[in-house]
């Protein structure tokens, strides 16, 4: 039997979810509406994490002190994504990045945009590791991480 004679059946699984953000993350999103980026500080190691956490993953201590962090920070790393896949939320090409916001102690995952992304060579000259970026807010707040529309390079 040749390969072509084996049959394929197309299938799909679709399951809707309602995911609870809980107290800490609900407050983070409430603050995004007011254009504030909030983190929490660990009682033991004093690190400030954004997104905020109810407990420190390393110390296992409560992180219940809220801290407003800066809306600007440095690019710890970034990636120019030019690869499509099913149910991708952002249109390619886009830049995904780790941004260390001033006043926080970890990379915050978001996108870098506000520049022409079509020509990679130009992108490479604009987006720098260790370079500074600042938040640009969406006019309409939907209660999602894209309430911060993107981070743009600061000249």
């Amino acid at each position, binding site marked *: 039997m040749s390969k072509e004679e084996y049959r394929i059946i197309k299938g799909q699984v679709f399951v809707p*979810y309602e995911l609870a953000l809980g107290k800490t993350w609900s407050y983070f999103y409430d603050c995004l509406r007011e254009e504030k980026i909030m983190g929490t500080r660990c009682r033991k190691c004093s690190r400030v*994490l954004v997104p905020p956490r109810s407990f420190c993953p390393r110390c296992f201590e409560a992180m219940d002190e809220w801290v407003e962090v800066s809306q600007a920070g440095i690019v*710890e790393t970034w990636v120019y*994504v030019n690869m499509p896949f*099913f*149910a991708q939320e952002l249109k390619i090409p886009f830049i995904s*990045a780790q941004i260390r916001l001033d006043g926080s102690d970890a990379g915050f995952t978001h996108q870098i945009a506000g520049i022409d992304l079509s020509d990679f060579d130009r992108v490479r000259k604009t987006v720098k590791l260790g370079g500074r970026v600042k938040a640009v807010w969406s006019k309409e707040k939907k209660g999602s991480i*894209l309430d911060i529309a993107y981070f743009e390079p600061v000249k």
Partner: protein
Amino acid sequence: MGRAVAIIGTGQTRHGRRQDVCYPDLVKEAVTAALEDAGLALKDIDGVVLGTMPSMMEGVSSTHFYFADAMGAFNKPVMKVETCGSTGQSIGHCGFYWVSSGMADIILVVGSEKMSEGDGQATMTTVFDPFFQRTFAAGAPGVFTMQSMEWMYRFRIPEEKGREAAALISVSNHDNAMNNPYAHIRTRVTVDDVKNARIITYPVRLLDVCPASDGACAVIFASEEKAKKICKKPAWIKGIGFRGEEFFYGESDKSIWMSATEAAKEAYRQAGIRNPLKELDVAEIYNPFTYQEMIFYECFGFCPRGEAPDYVLKGTFKKGGQLPCCPSGGTLCTNPIGATGLIRMAEAALQVTGKAGDRQVEGVKLALSHAMGGVDQFNGVTILGSRL
């Protein structure tokens, strides 16, 4: 410490696009091959361990139910272990624990994936948290590229040097896969081919990235007493290490990668290895991305931090070098994810027992195998030896 444990049989499918078999039949192919290799029948098996990627990969949940028949699990204890890319090492470790504890004498461990049937990167993206990071996730390439960029920046590795070394790694893995009858991608490539391939996630290009493969691997673990009785040349487990780190990418420094470093250290401690570059004879590293393979060299102590590209450029890790890496062609040429970490372990077992055919490295006594999983979160290492 528990009892000594050996690998006494391994089996792999022909990996690639396997539309000629349904998923359970693919699993059975590997199980049958492992039983034949060990000279055992199903009745000799005390229990079965399975591992795969998340259910979204093929759209069937809890695949240990689906594969129970193919694994010969009727009336036997069955366990499923799942740690994303590091699944293959995790299930091997589980087989080791089970036998080492004395609760079983012979355990069958099976890893599998049929990636042609779903969307691997869409599946990978569901490993990210749903609230903060998933929106910006770009499957495995997105993460591993960010990590590679961070690493090159941290150690001031010039872009051209990193590019050249990564291209050489791609060429070397593709050359090695030509010697491996099970490998998915079996074509030679040149440095220029790699450098000019389509951009996936810059600076990573198509030939820096593994394929999505269908394949399964089965490995049989036995106690010292059984291994000595059944098997002429067992591959002894000398040390294992597994470490995890925080869930959110961005919280740890992935350029020095604690979980990879500490997993290897623990395995070395158990195996009594002090200088891995000198003492190891071969390494099967989980290398779905060329750049990332260099980070592993550093985490595993094969070379100082930031110097992996220099070692690659002088040929330390290629065939005939001081420490040949991935003589099988590695994950870069074959990646049925749930099976991949176990394939690394099986290949290391073949190397220490002299059964690796055309890809055999001369006189291997100690071999490292490894796998990494999640959003750069987990790492597992197993050291195999020719002597107890």
